[in-house]
């Protein structure tokens, strides 16, 4: 039963990533694209976690944790750059 749920989860998260990609390409403003990238990182974390359940291994947790940290830092850095024209003043 978990395998069927995982299959549904893979399809759903992939569909969500495609929708985010659409917003990333067609976003009217820059901040729309930043928001789309941020959402894509979170969806990629979900995909990695589901893949880890399917493979029955805990190796991918570190990858998910690193991706969460880098996604947050890159989003904040990009917003800071758009706000002030510099990342670290």
């Amino acid at each position, binding site marked *: *039963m*978990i395998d069927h*749920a995982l299959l549904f989860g893979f399809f759903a998260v992939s569909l969500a990533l495609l929708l985010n990609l659409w917003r990333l390409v067609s976003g009217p403003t820059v*901040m729309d694209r930043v928001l789309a990238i*941020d959402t894509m990182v979170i*969806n990629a974390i979900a995909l990695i976690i589901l893949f880890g359940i399917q493979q029955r291994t805990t190796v991918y947790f570190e990858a998910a944790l690193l991706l*969460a940290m880098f996604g*947050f830092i890159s*989003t*904040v850095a990009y917003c800071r750059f758009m706000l002030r024209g510099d990342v670290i003043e």
Partner: protein
Amino acid sequence: MPFVLELFISLLIVIGAVFIVVGSLGLIKLPDLMTRLHAPTKATTLGVGGALIASMLYFFGAEGSLSIHEVLITAFLFLTAPVTAHFIAKAHLHLQGREASELPPTGRDLGWSTFDAAPRECAAGDKVAGGVKPGREPS
């Protein structure tokens, strides 16, 4: 693994996936950025939380040991989602070029912190205050 636990894990995965799709659908459907911010930062974060809790329960049922990694990732995501949403909204306000006079009054001496410089007493050292973008001085 007991059947009830398996059913619960499957339900968590499906619910999390549905929340993720709803968040991304909101990112497409909603009209402008300020409304679009709500969908990914709330629904998608909740969906990822569901998937992470499902993973934690699965490895608890399969190996018998409770792993704390998922709780760490969940806590990190739940803490950082409002911060990124705030930063994106603030950058959006500045990039739009809107005036502070369009906003309703704050009801205090100070203006909106998004547009006005920090008051002199709060800015520790003039070096910081000198670097703040010139705004309306607090009366």
